[in-house]
């Protein structure tokens, strides 16, 4: 009987466990997580932190879910090392688990700012349900906030401050929010959204150090220009550090993440990886890529499991991811790899509508839609078909996108 061991019970690990049980009813399956609760909805914890959503709807699996599927679940168990020659997983309690096939699905941990007092009381990072509970409780009592990290996770802190009535300064490096994917026009719409909820974007800033009171609670952030921003609440979201420490010596190829092919196989036999932690071969892009989104992590878990159970390269990962921001009156959707590409086309349609498409070698590789999200499925379809359309950007920038107006694809 094959023993599958999955490290991590986020959406990638959990979706792999579910698929493995479907594909291999007789197998032994073990899921190990260092969190104290089974899979929950990580993309809804921000709604809890905002004070809007109660805890119950955020849970996805209870322990019974694993029992019903005869899956062994180890909560509060930290994997400390993996011996890939002996095929043994070691845990912090000294337990050893032998595996036949292993899935690494351990995601990342928010990176701390390398500045003085960055671990002071009142400074929050946001990844787990426990983080969300602490943020909610503190935000409810806080008055003045500082946010650092001008990306997709930083903006969740802005939304928390807005919803919890915290007046906040959002300190950004550079002249706009998410400068790698948005031009000034697109970013300005987001800045207005922040201002509308009481969060002021501050440009060409950042944090040089935090100041604290005698009890070690944050009182201010000082930026590199020497400007001081009072705060009793701070949110830091400057990126993720992948949880690979326990894999030292395991022989897995790493490149800021675990390198896998399109079948989620690492370079070590019978070791697979899935979810945020992977640097995977993106068949649509034609190169290695990374992705931090729920849908992509879930699909990678499923694909890894299909190939683990089949014991061959049965199905490749082919996926266009998307990531929404739903905090403001207008919606925002980023799809594919909006920060990549060698060419871009964009248009502003109104004070709350904007679109940008990124092309590589003439093909769409990603984009950002603000306000009107309706063209998303058409752009994703063109990505899946790998159509060369950069020279017809005008059609793609029409308010109503009609794919029939595109010239017929050339025979390859």
């Amino acid at each position, binding site marked *: 009987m094959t023993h599958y061991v999955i490290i991590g019970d986020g959406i990638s690990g959990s979706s792999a466990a579910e698929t493995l049980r479907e594909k291999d009813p007789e197998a032994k399956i073990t899921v190990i997580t260092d969190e104290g609760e089974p899979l929950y*909805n990580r*993309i*809804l914890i921000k*709604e809890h932190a905002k004070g*809007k*959503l*109660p*805890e*119950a*709807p*955020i849970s996805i699996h209870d322990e019974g879910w694993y029992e019903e599927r005869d899956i062994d679940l180890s909560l509060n168990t930290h994997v400390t090392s993996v011996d890939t020659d002996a095929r043994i997983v070691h845990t912090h309690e000294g337990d050893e688990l032998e595996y036949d096939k292993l899935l690494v699905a351990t995601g990342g941990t928010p990176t701390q700012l390398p500045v003085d007092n960055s671990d002071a009381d009142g400074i929050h990072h946001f990844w787990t349900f426990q983080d969300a509970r602490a943020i909610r409780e503190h935000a409810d009592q806080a008055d003045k906030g500082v946010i650092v990290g001008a990306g997709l996770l930083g903006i969740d802190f802005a939304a928390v401050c807005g919803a919890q009535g915290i007046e906040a300064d959002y300190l950004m490096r550079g002249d706009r929010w998410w400068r790698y994917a948005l031009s000034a026009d697109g970013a300005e719409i987001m800045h207005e959204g922040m201002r509308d909820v009481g969060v002021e974007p501050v440009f060409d800033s950042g944090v040089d150090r935090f100041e604290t009171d005698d009890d070690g609670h944050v009182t201010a952030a000082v930026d590199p220009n020497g400007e001081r921003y009072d705060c009793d609440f701070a949110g830091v979201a400057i990126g993720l550090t992948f949880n690979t420490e326990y894999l030292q010596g395991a022989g897995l190829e790493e490149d800021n993440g675990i390198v896998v092919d399109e079948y989620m196989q690492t370079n070590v036999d019978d070791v697979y990886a899935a979810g945020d932690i992977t640097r995977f071969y993106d068949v649509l892009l034609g190169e290695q890529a990374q992705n931090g*989104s*729920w*849908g992509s992590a879930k699909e990678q878990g499923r694909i890894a499991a299909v190939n683990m159970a089949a014991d061959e390269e049965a199905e490749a990962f082919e996926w*266009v991811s*998307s*990531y*929404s921001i*739903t*905090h*403001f*009156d*207008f*919606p925002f959707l980023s799809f594919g790899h909006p920060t990549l590409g060698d060419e871009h086309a964009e248009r502003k349609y109104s004070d709350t509508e904007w679109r940008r498409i990124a092309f590589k070698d003439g093909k769409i590789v990603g984009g950002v839609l603000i306000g009107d*999200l*309706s063209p*998303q*499925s058409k752009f*994703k379809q063109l990505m899946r078909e790998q159509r060369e359309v950069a020279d017809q950007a005008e059609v793609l920038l029409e308010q109503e996108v009609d794919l029939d107006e595109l010239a017929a694809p050339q025979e390859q």
Partner: protein
Amino acid sequence: MASSELPSSEHASRPLRLECVESIPAGTTTRHVDQLDTETLDTFYAALDGDRSLLEADTDLEIGEVIVFTEYYRVDHV
């Protein structure tokens, strides 16, 4: 004919509506919009714009669940 007597194909194409709700009671299935598949997402956006009616058969939405978008939307039969 009572709705329970409808042939299953007619059941499946019953129109749905999205009702904006302020709060979510415990026990309500709740999904973020990023959990919807591309086709469901498309119909969801169109239904919000009033462009298209939402048919049960075209989506993976479930009656009673709440979708978190710029508002919280409860899925119901029309």
